[in-house]
């Protein structure tokens, strides 16, 4: 098959004050024409660097040491400045991760899309027409009027669609998508994946998709390149990689993906260790330090690129015969997976630690005067509406919903960080709503929160030592007390971080390490309840498992109660006892997590369960399970609020709001036609 792009022996360094970082070393990648190539790797693997090096858009301190990037007959790295502009405008386009920051906020889409066509010499009417056609093609309704709108007028999914339209406007031979769905919800992600596949077939374009999300790669791509620490470890067709992975890293990575673990398991597989420091180029295999198969020779001798089949290449001593005897790596299963034998006792008979009744959180959208003038009868939105639930002692409750469903607001309201409008929250029988901060403070010992952004939730100018001792100081231990240091060390031990981390600062931590510090901080006061907001967001797949295992172990040892807030249903399923599904501030389904996951009763739950793409190319979804986007809270749909996106909706759903009903298995569902009974 013909190659559109060939990357040969590409080496990229970054110059930093502390020496050179060898970010890419001897990269060879073939991009085949009319196929979708997935570039997969964890953060720090250099997957974005490959893309920026190809486009010659590296940061100023990035140096292309050697290599070539052949596009057709040309070497992109040898292009003059003019050639480069032409190449970027006409031959290649990029769909960026975050459409909000990659689109120009002060120009409307019509202007932005006309600018892209400046080299074509079309008249402005023609440019406008081409732009409108393209917007229609990517599924933006009513493109004639929407083209005059600005990025902030579009919702997240629409914005990404517009981003794809802009990228395709010049009919490029090569389309590069850098984490195209990372900023989107699962239901939007499925829509974007299908759109990209359709467009690729229709426009006979070639795609490179960069992602850390194995499910996305499996669902979208034809060929896959696995990058690790700046080297290509494995390269092959999607089936090769996902059904017959040859490199231990690929195998471990696949095992780690929670969506791939079919059986519910309390302990998730992980890859221990960290990505190596690339200041010194490693001598042997880059993965040797973390590889469970590694033999003595692996860390000193660089493995060659072995060709298993014509399409399948792997860089591993397992498949080469450079090493002999004892030096060889051990064959066999990677042994990364672990099973959980400790059965958990049922928490069903436990009493409630927190009990929430008809909680409602209302945000004002305009002042009282403006509402009077504009005759707006509802100058507010209800982010959380009529939520009642009990959190039992020692259980893990997963709260799942898309962004904008009110799940974060709900969690923060329990802790009194956001005032409630109505309803009640009791903690061990004490009413929390309306409690002044002075009286709330002693209760804060018993409830802690883990925040979404692992690094951003740590005060940037504080060392880990003071971050860990601060909760104790706030609750009455004197600062400067030497016992505080011991306490901080004990907390670090609990989250399995080395003690010399005490003098580090948040920006010196990786995402996973910062998350551990966050866990330690939450544990500092020995709370009874921990509310974890997206505990795995922003973490690599291999680290996600570690954090969840850690939380799980701490729960077992300390009898903690967890409320885990997340959009990622497959992840939370493994660790929760019960699940609550939230949509537009309401709980639409609530019950035992396995029952819900295996047989969702609410159509929305079904969409979430099937929304996450499976890392298995033979299980590609044919139909999009859910259409449209989350409606605005300002105008809630009538009747069942999900009816506009529900494929089972009837007239009754449009007019009459369903009441939560408790099914025989103890599940509460707000749906007229629950899927399990029909």
């Amino acid at each position, binding site marked *: 098959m013909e190659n559109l792009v060939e990357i040969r022996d590409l080496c990229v360094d970054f110059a930093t004050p502390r020496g050179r970082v060898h970010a890419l070393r001897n990269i060879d990648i073939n991009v085949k024409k009319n196929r979708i190539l997935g570039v997969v790797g964890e953060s720090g693997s250099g997957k974005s660097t490959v893309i920026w090096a190809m486009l010659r858009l590296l940061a100023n301190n990035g140096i292309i040491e050697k290599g070539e990037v052949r596009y057709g007959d040309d070497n992109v790295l040898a292009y003059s400045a003019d050639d480069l502009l032409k190449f970027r405008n006409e031959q290649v386009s990029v769909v960026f991760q975050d459409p909000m920051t990659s689109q120009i906020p002060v120009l409307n889409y019509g202007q932005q899309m006309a600018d892209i066509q400046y080299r074509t010499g079309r008249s402005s009417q023609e440019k406008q027409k081409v732009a409108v056609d393209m917007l229609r093609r990517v599924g933006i309704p009513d493109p004639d009027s929407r083209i005059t709108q600005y990025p902030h007028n579009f919702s997240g999914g629409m914005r990404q669609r517009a981003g794809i339209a802009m990228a395709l406007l010049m009919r490029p031979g090569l389309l590069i998508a850098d984490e195209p769905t990372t900023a989107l919800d699962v239901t939007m992600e499925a829509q974007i994946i299908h759109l990209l596949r359709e467009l690729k077939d229709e426009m006979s374009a070639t795609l490179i998709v960069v992602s850390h999300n194995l499910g996305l790669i499996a669902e979208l791509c034809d060929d896959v390149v696995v990058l690790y620490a700046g080297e290509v470890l494995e390269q092959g067709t999607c089936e090769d990689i996902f059904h017959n992975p040859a490199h231990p890293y690929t195998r471990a990575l696949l095992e780690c993906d929670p969506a791939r673990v079919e059986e519910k398991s309390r302990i998730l597989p992980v890859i221990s260790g960290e990505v190596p420091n690339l200041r010194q180029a490693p001598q042997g295999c880059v993965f040797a330090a973390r590889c469970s198969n590694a033999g003595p020779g692996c860390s000193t001798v660089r493995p060659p690129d072995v060709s298993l089949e014509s399409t399948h290449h792997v860089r591993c001593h397992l498949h080469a015969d450079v090493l002999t005897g004892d030096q060889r790596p051990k064959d066999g299963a990677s042994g990364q997976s672990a099973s959980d034998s400790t059965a958990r006792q049922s928490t069903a008979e436990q009493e409630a630690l927190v009990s929430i009744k008809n909680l409602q959180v209302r945000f004002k959208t305009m002042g009282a005067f403006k509402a009077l003038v504009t005759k707006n009868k509802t100058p507010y939105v209800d982010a959380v509406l009529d939520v009642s639930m009990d959190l039992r002692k020692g259980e893990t409750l997963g709260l799942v919903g898309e962004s904008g469903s009110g799940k974060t607001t709900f969690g*923060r309201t329990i802790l009194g960080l956001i005032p409630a409008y109505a309803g009640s929250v009791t903690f061990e029988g004490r009413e929390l709503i309306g409690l002044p901060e002075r009286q709330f403070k002693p209760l804060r010992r018993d409830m802690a929160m883990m925040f979404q952004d692992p690094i951003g939730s740590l005060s940037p100018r504080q060392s880990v030592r003071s971050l860990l001792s*601060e909760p104790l100081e706030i609750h009455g231990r004197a600062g400067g007390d030497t016992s505080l240091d011991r306490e901080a060390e004990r907390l670090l031990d609990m989250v399995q971080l080395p003690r010399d981390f005490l003098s580090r600062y948040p920006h010196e931590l990786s995402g996973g390490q910062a998350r551990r510090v966050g866990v330690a901080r939450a544990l500092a006061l020995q709370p009874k309840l921990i509310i974890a907001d997206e505990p795995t967001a922003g973490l690599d797949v291999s680290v996600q498992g570690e954090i969840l295992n850690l939380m799980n172990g701490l729960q077992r040892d300390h009898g903690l109660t967890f409320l885990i807030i997340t959009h990622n249903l497959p992840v939370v399923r493994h660790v929760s006892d019960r699940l609550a599904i939230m949509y537009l501030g309401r709980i639409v389904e609530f019950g035992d997590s396995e029952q819900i996951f295996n047989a969702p009763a609410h159509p929305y739950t079904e969409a979430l369960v099937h929304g996450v793409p499976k890392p298995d190319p033979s299980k590609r979804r044919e139909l999009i399970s859910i259409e449209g986007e989350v409606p605005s809270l300002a105008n809630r749909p009538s009747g069942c609020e999900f009816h506009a996106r529900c494929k089972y909706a009837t007239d009754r759903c449009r007019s009459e709001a369903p009441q939560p009903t408790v099914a025989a298995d103890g599940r509460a569902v707000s749906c007229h036609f629950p899927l399990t009974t029909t």
Partner: protein
Amino acid sequence: MSVNPSDTSATGAGAADAPQTAHSETRDKLIVFMKNTQGMLGLFLVIAFFASAIFAPFFATHDPFAMDIPARMSGPTAEHWLGTDQLGRDTYTRVLYGGRVALQVAMIGVSVSLVVGLLLGTLAGYGPRWLDSILLLLFDSVRSFPTIVMALAAVALLGPSLELVLAIVIVTTIPGYARLARTATMSLRNSEFITAERSLGASMWLILRRHLIPNVIGPLLILAAMDVPVVVTVEAGLSFLGLGVLPPTASWGTVLNEGYLVIRDTPWPVIAGGIPLVLTTLGFTFLGEALRDTFDPRLNRGR
């Protein structure tokens, strides 16, 4: 005021048992700073300014008030290195002593307004809405007065003095710091780490002291370094107009003022009074910019 690089290296050496990362972090910054030629020049000028002002009696060749009538309005000679003024006072000595006034005004004025501005600004940014409105009204009222008009009014009421110059400098520069601190605080107040502190039960004062001020002070320090020359020129300007330091006390402004009257006879007092003003201004500006480049990673252009 400014971050003294010799200080940072001293703490780095003292904390030899500290782990490598924290240590080399400081050293990285130091290396970045040292490579900045403009910054090093600025640092040199600033140190020279401090040294000459503090040790003025030591460097001086004459008494600043001693008159040498026969040699009045002379050019540079072996006796009077930078010439003399219309009363025969040694210009070099007077400029040295003038630096003391400039230093006093700059250091006291800038540091007081930095501290007050920082406190008021973070309070306005993090505190209740009504406090923010009141403080903003206050800042904007002060800023709406031209400095010179305000100084004229104050002098008319209280008579010229060094203290008054200081007070005017402080009052007029506070809003700048407060505004900057307020904006920085507002962008931080809803960030996750502040919410995290609130969830732990941290009081407003603790959040202000430990988590907001350390994060907003950086740009303020740089503004302060760049404000020093402004303050020095304000003092010189007011003294030049006769609203500040009173003759016969030497200040760069009074030296300029007196030299200006006799500029047709001798240009030396004006030259000698102007050059240190220019050098100090340049020095602090260079230093401020270099500090900003070093400590604001967003501006780090991959050097």
